[in-house]
């Protein structure tokens, strides 16, 4: 018997005609003309449930945004620590509710500002941090026990976390009162963001040390933010972003369990970070599917007992890669739509990109508009008044199911390969992403996918936007500062402290305690990373095309 939908498709719909041969998401997932109850068959309690209850499809907290709005957390960092400190205090004065720190490339890659590899990069893509003194300036006049801070740093994260905790301690805050998130997701570095020092195995060992350490010493800190953001930016589809992120999460859980930690002790401290791209429905479905898959994995595969261990709490950021350098004001509209998807997808914190970020770091005006966009969504649109308002939509539920199915297929494939570290060594996720990125580029160039202002509705002459300039003196000043600090500190104490770090690398003892001691003795990011390089070796880009 032909269903209603089938009958409709072959008669009414067909006779009406279509404007395109194929309809698909930005990730190239084919979309049907209509979703009906036939496409979204589910047992309500099993597949959706209520907010705050397994499988958390409709939201991780019972009252969601009616209880508390998401955290508006704009990523900021440039120049010297005091420059970023000023931007932080400006953003807080404008109603931002959490901090998010961007570090410069030398800090992220574990080089001091005075290292030759740092030339030209100091304070450019983020704030420069070489020693504990920079961290003290960075969070000066901001009480670290009264704010939550997110820090985007990975291969040198252990050192930055140690510095953060020492700064908090010097402010008089106990470590058990300090909360925040450090990205520290090394697996996605090998897959996508590609800032690394050591090979995957020791990198994951350091991450596991930090999970273990935070459980014991800084229980309100999230020691890893399992990130799909960069995977998507590197060109992955929405399904790949979802699948590789959750497979990374599985890998960290397995390592923590192998370390002897109890799943319900550390799982509640794992947090996530997803991308918000242009395809509205696909993004909402992705976030809902992410919560459901993670809950099921944690409960069924890892035997978590507590609800908090099963909840996928996530930060999200609008897609940098979806911004255009052409007609940059259009980016304000894109960001607003992407942010809406995040809110309808139930994220816990959100960064909205500034319109000028394809050109440079944002100016204050551009950064303010980005923050205002969130405030408009939160306080003018009414979207925060009811929870998961799109839940039950045939299209959304069908897409959520589809995302879950396709992502689980990837996760099984990675399990069969022997887990994510092995898959990375084989280049599997990297090459899947490169393939998807190339395919999308082709579709844009063949005008199958539209990018307004780039391959359609192009305007010949454009008035350039004013962009943020980083004063070239920043580098000189930081280099001088670092050199002076290195001359004046207690060399003996630094040497001894670094020796302790090296010893822990070898013995397998937790690295965090000796690193906390080393940063107190004014050992630098680069010096501690040099210990990693010497003890664990250096990872080299396989340079696949």
């Amino acid at each position: 018997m032909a269903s209603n939908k089938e009958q409709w498709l072959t008669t009414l719909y067909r006779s009406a005609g279509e404007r395109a041969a194929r309809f698909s998401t930005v990730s190239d997932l084919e979309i049907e003309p209509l979703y009906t109850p036939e496409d979204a068959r589910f047992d309500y309690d099993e597949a959706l449930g209520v907010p705050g209850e397994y499988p958390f499809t409709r939201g991780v907290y019972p009252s969601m945004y009616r209880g508390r709005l998401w955290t508006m957390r704009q990523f900021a960092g440039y120049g010297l620590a005091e420059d970023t400190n000023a931007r932080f205090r400006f953003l807080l004065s404008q109603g931002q509710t959490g901090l998010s720190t961007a570090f410069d490339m030398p800090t992220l890659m574990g080089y001091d500002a005075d290292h030759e590899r740092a030339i030209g990069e100091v304070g450019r893509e983020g704030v420069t941090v070489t020693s504990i003194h920079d961290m003290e300036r960075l969070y000066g006049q901001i009480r670290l026990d009264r704010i939550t801070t997110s820090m985007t740093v990975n291969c040198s994260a252990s050192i930055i976390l140690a510095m953060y905790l020492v700064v908090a301690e010097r402010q008089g805050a106990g470590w058990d009162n300090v909360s925040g998130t450090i990205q520290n997701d090394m697996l996605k570095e090998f897959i996508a963001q590609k800032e690394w020092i050591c090979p995957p195995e020791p990198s994951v060992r350091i991450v596991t040390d930090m999970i273990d350490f935070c459980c014991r010493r800084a229980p309100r800190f999230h020691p890893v933010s399992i990130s799909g953001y960069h995977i998507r930016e590197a060109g992955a589809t929405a399904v790949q972003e979802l699948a590789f992120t959750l497979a990374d999460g599985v890998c960290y859980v397995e390592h923590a369990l192998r370390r002897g930690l109890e799943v319900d002790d550390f799982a509640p401290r794992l947090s996530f970070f997803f991308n918000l791209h242009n395809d509205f429905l696909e993004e909402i479905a992705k976030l809902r599917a992410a919560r459901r898959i993670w809950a099921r994995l944690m409960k069924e595969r890892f035997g978590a007992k507590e609800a908090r261990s099963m909840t996928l709490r996530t930060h999200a950021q609008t897609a940098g890669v979806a911004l255009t350098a052409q007609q940059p004001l259009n980016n304000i509209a894109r960001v607003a739509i992407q942010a809406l998807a995040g809110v309808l997808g139930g994220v816990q914190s959100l960064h909205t990109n500034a319109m000028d970020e394809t050109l440079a770091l944002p100016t204050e005006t551009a950064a303010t508009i980005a923050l205002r966009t969130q405030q408009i969504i939160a306080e003018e649109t009414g979207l925060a008044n009811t929870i998961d308002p799109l839940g039950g939509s045939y299209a959304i539920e069908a897409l959520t199911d589809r995302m879950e199915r396709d992502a689980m297929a990837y996760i099984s494939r990675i399990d069969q390969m022997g887990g994510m570290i092995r898959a990375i060594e084989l280049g599997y996720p990297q090459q899947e992403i490169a393939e998807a990125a190339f395919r999308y580029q082709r579709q844009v160039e063949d005008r199958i996918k539209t990018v307004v202002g780039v391959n359609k509705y192009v305007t010949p002459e454009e008035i350039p936007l004013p962009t943020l300039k980083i004063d070239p003196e920043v580098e000189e000043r930081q280099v001088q500062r670092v050199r002076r600090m290195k001359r004046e500190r207690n060399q003996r104490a630094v040497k001894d402290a670094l020796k302790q770090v090296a010893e822990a690398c070898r013995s397998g003892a937790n690295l965090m305690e000796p690193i906390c001691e080393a940063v107190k003795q004014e050992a630098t990011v680069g010096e501690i990373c040099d210990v990693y390089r010497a003890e664990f070796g250096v990872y080299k880009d396989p340079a696949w095309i």
Partner: protein
Amino acid sequence: MTGPARPLSETLRHGGAMTQRRVRILVAKAGLDGHDRGAKIIARALRDAGFEVIYTGLHQTPEMVATAAVQEDVDGVGLSILSGAHLTLFPEVIRLLRENGAGDVVVFGGGIIPSEDAQKLKEIGVKEVFTPGASTQEIASWVKENIRPRE
């Protein structure tokens, strides 16, 4: 898969080929950042367009880029920079190429580069700067027009 260690294709360069040898391009990723999406797409698109392409991989210093360009005997270097360090890295690569007797290698590039900086780069000898939104076809035809096999 292509890496920096790929052997030179001697037959194409000196062997019995009747036609002029193919243009060789080094796609280089200088700086500390890991943004290689663009570089990889360009490398692949240039290869598909018929050029010989060598990709350096990430995190190269100007010395590494210039050395690879000389060793691989390339005709052009496409430098991808998204870290904001373009005003430091481009001039350094050009200086080192000249120092190593490879000043005739055409240097072009792309990345997050404001237009006024692109202008400065052209003044110091960068032949073209492509910014976000440039199509691979546009870049491939530019290479075809502007880069010839070196003598």
